[in-house]
């Protein structure tokens, strides 16, 4: 990449009391790039995203966003640069889809026409325009997942962090979400995307980081990763297993 990174993470460390979840992790994300963030359960993916979006504040290392020091946990302006789609559904079941988007849009600083347009776009993105006035508690898991993504992207952030957005949904919803992400990618949006679905990552991501036990195991495109292991015909899942081992992670 010749251009300057949008986000630069250097020597990131984070520990939950005695257990070190992220160990000296460094990576960059470039404008317009979709960065896949892969790793087995407990590898430190969610912790890393939580540090980047400011949910966790006591990390070590440094971060720069467009070359500026970045600590979103301490700056609401810096948080406005990011959109977050948490792994857990973060929606209010007693509000309608439209009310959820309006609320999160207002919190992101949108008002008036901008808010109306963003909500309308979000409902379209989630394929829920016809259910806009229905309460979220009446939605299926897939509908909630789609709305969860729309809520994170409402204010069109410079960097959208997606933590396993397709987990636990049926193939139709998963396909819809995947197509939505492809649309965002084609729009030139910058995404960091964690998933356990290797074929999704292979199709969607320009570049993939594989983390293992809190540290970076490898990075590059799917092809580059395979070649680095002297397995030119291997798919991403084989590469992943080669790098992270076959033992169970609980």
């Amino acid at each position, binding site marked *: 990449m010749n251009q300057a990174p949008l986000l630069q993470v250097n020597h990131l460390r984070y520990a939950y009391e005695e257990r070190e979840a992220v160990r000296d992790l460094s990576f960059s994300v470039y404008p317009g790039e979709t960065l896949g963030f892969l790793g087995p359960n407990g590898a430190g993916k969610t912790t890393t995203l939580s540090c980047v*979006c*400011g*949910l966790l*504040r*006591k990390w070590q290392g440094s971060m720069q966003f467009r070359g500026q020091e970045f600590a979103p946990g301490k700056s*609401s*302006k810096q*948080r*406005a640069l*990011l959109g*977050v789609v*948490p792994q*857990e*559904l*973060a*929606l*209010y*079941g*007693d*509000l309608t889809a439209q*009310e959820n988007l309006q*609320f*999160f849009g*207002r*919190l*992101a*600083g949108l008002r008036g026409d901008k808010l109306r347009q963003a909500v309308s776009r979000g409902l379209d993105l989630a394929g829920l325009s016809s259910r806009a006035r229905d309460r979220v508690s009446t939605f299926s898991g897939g509908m909630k997942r789609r709305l969860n993504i729309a*809520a*994170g992207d409402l204010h069109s952030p410079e960097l959208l962090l997606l933590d396993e957005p397709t987990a636990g949904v049926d193939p139709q919803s998963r396909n819809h979400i995947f197509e939505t992400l492809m649309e965002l990618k084609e729009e030139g949006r910058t995404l960091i995307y964690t998933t356990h679905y290797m074929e999704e990552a292979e199709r969607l991501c320009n570049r993939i980081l594989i983390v293992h036990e809190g540290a970076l195991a490898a990075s590059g495109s799917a092809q580059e990763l395979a070649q680095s292991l002297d397995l030119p015909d291997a798919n991403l899942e084989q590469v992943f297993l080669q790098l992270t081992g076959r033992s169970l992670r609980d």
Partner: protein
Amino acid sequence: MDTFRAAWLIACRDLRSYFRDRTGMLLGFALPIALVGVFGFLSTFLYGEGGAMGRASLWVADEDQSESSARFLQLLADAETVSLHPAVGEDAVTESELRQKIIDGEIHHGLVLTAGFGQTMEQGGLPTLRMLRDPGRTMEDMMIQIGIMQAYFGVTEGNAWPAMMGRQMRQLGMDDDMAKQVESFSESTLQLMRTVFPKSEEEPEAKNEELAGFDMQNFFTQMVPMEEEDFSPPDRPKMVTWMQAQSISGITVMMLMFGLLACGVSLIREREEGTMQRLLASPAPRSAILWGKFMFTAIVGFIQLTVLLTFGETVFHVDTFRDPATLLALMVCTTLAITSFGMLIASWAQTQKQAEGVSTLLILMMSCLGGAWFPLQAFDVPVYVHYAMRSTLTHWAISGFQGMFWHQQSWLHPAMLLDLSVLLGFSVLAACGSLLLFRRRLDA
């Protein structure tokens, strides 16, 4: 985005959810109203209208069936501290039935007027009464004794006084001769008083203080040299009793605490339902999350308090809206103090279960110590209980409402200013504590 706007957005979202759950919301208002109603209503019976002591039930078996026993029972029925049974229309009971009722726990006191009651009285003697009782019911026992004493003096028209004095002296250890001298002296004194203060037979209704004659029933109470002077605020509603005002204040404050805690717990629900992550990741200042919950809880509390006090005014006529400025000051300070308390618990607790457990315990303890259940402040308690009482916000809130309802204090009255200041102090301390805990929880 500024903190206030973000907090207001969060409060509005919570209010929308709160009012959308209509059953939950109605229960939130109906339960406190029901409790205030029941306690206010019951306090009329427990403490009597006009704030007098309530009546204790006394069952009587009249085995004498004489004119004297009937007259005695009539006087007993007129006594302010006794509620006599069987009432008119109820079946008469025998001594053995009284015994069985006490054993069965149906009644606590039974009085037997044995055969010969009237005859002994006609002969100038002291008829012996037989009291059957549950020994643990000391409070009722005292009230019944007062009623019996009044009726006994009344039925003998004071004639029994010399004999009673003699009996009392003998019980104190005086020998029989000396006791008889006391009886004789008492008899002479009684006759002298009756000569000096003759009873008006012709116009009993028209008698005034000077012509009232000698009344043994009031004789003892008038022995102490005491001038009575009543003080009560001119605007105090005549129908309201002190205990009613206490009950309405106490239960209102207690129920407000329960109601607001449920709102405060919405902070924990955000964590448990995952929405906290999105709130924290949003550009809204983090403290706005806590202040948003604070605003939501305070708004609901203010509405609940308004509804409860309006109910109290409508049903019990406690003259709630007499002084709007004082009422507003009290409502604001009480709501703020209780809201801050709720937020402190919600910030401390890790789960909803923890919050509900701890807060229920604390609310019940504070309600008990603060006087929400019974007027603890009216009793002489050990110093440590006194301090424990004053360390609760319920004490100051109830004291404020009592000051307004009963003492008709304005917000400028020093006692009311103290109540308001302490409540505000509680609010500031608890709010700072909850902010610290909230921040610590975020950094954990």
